[in-house]
């Protein structure tokens, strides 16, 4: 099982570096994962990550992008509630890259 070390702890991941245990997540882990993705975490990045985690807690799946963009638009202003804004934040794709940093499993299926 792949894993990484951070602050003296070992974290298990899947082959693509997604955390295996949702509960392992914390801000330092998020920063570490973001670094691996070359994403510099700003306030706006955290907003997305926090929303993803809240949604996942409730529904056990990541939200579809449209739900995410609407929520971000509500919180940060309409001009930010769109896919382009999300891709600017997470060029690797909000669904896959942001989910990884948020400690959610990788969405798989026909996606």
């Amino acid at each position, binding site marked *: 099982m792949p894993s990484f070390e951070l602050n003296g702890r070992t974290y298990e991941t899947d082959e693509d570096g997604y955390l295996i245990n949702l509960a392992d997540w914390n801000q330092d882990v998020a920063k570490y994962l973001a670094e691996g993705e070359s994403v510099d975490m700003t306030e706006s990045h955290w907003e997305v990550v926090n929303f993803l985690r809240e949604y996942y807690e409730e*529904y*056990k*799946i990541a*939200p579809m992008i*449209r*739900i995410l963009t609407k929520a971000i638009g509500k919180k940060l202003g309409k001009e930010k509630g769109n896919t382009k804004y999300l891709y600017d934040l997470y060029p690797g794709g909000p669904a896959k890259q942001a989910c990884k940093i948020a400690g959610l499993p990788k969405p*798989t299926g*026909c*996606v």
Partner: protein
Amino acid sequence: MADVNYEIPEIQDEIETPRLKEGASAHLGPYPAQEKHMAPLGFPAARVEDWQSKGVEKLGELLKKYRSLQVYLDICVKCGACADKCHYYLGTRDPHNMPVQRAELMRGVYRRYFTPAGKLLPGVVRAHDFDEETLKKWVTYFHQCSQCRRCSVFCPYGIDTAEISMAAREIMDSIGVGHKYTTEIVGKVHTIGNNLGIPQPALKGTLEFLEEDMLDTSGHEIRLPLDQPGAEVLLVAPSADFFSEPHIQSLMGYAKVFHQAGISFTISSYASEAANFGMFIGSFDQKRKIAARIAKQARELGVKRLVVGECGHAWRVAYSFWNTLAGPWDFLDPNYPVPQHICEFTYDLYKKGALVFDRDANDDKVVTFHDSCNVARATRMGDRPGGQMMIPRELIRATCNRFVEMDPDTIGEKTFCCGGGGGLLTDELMELRVKGAMPRVTALKRVMEDKEVNFLGLICAICKAQFSKILPIYGIPMETVGGVHQLVSNAIQLGAKRGIV
């Protein structure tokens, strides 16, 4: 261009047959399935100790079970007509991706254990043991076949390499050598009901969200009902339609058609998946279990008709196999095709005058259409031969003013796979997917440059996901990709006149 550590094929004016490069894609293999993926499907958790004899035994079993497999292994005359017809060969240059060479990986084993000459003089008839090296090649190259069947169109004997690759995967699963992506997904269908693993409350929330969205944008109360007994139609869509862009645009298109025609329908959370990855892993048993969920729901909800959303291989399974897998469907209304493709459904309503389209609504687009391999080569729509090619095009013409065809050698039954079919739509195979898309991208670029095409119409969830990812790597914007029902969704006139069916 994207930042990748492999060479992205340069797009030429025409699709060129490349020079061979031995082992060019030998490094591209799938992630292995683990115990947690294999065990729930009834496969050995890890590679079994006597895997060689067990594998050969399984091959023997399949030869008895599928007469066609035996024929395909026997009759190839090595004429080479198929050699340059596979998108993975054209894109990777690896000779093992020539269909004839791919099949040879199984033929060698077949000859060794099942023909007198191979048993006695293996070297003379190019027979080889089912050994470590062969298994490694099987894992690699039978996961570089998207089971698209393009090669079979050009083979004078109709040899279907897709069937050989399905059999190879079935044999590998039986000895505990599985592919993570496909087995994990089949597992999710059994436990949650769909490939993505969307639980009922999330699905409900998503559909309500989209209803609100449609109310905001159209001013009409268009429903996406979930788990409603007594509806006329059970709509079975690929679960990507509940999750991804541009897939959800088509979902909204379906909903508008039902709304406008005044036909009640429901989506089912228990059977919330049209896709059937049981086919990709060659497992009749898994295929049957997945299809059974749909039959069970259709009965329990008391629907009269079954309509299948935009999903290529799902339509193959539904059209060609549902009867055997989950029939009889005698409880459904015999006045309609069982099952019916959403394109057939919408087109039929349009022909009857129940729907009105405003083509100008899509005037920002010049549209071309990519035939999905499974739909084009393994199914039918409507009552005329070639309907599976004709009906989606007719729908596009009914909803758009400008429609252009790509190179005739790349459409219809000669269509190229998107590069992500057959259970290969997974990130560890990204290099393969990018390279395998080369032929389609070549034909697309041609019409983009010559005919100003800016929209690639699709009827498959895998094609949509694959092209959304791959086209940007070739410098083509993601927004180029969309569903045929996305065009319907834009053009349909709501409230103009209410259905007459």
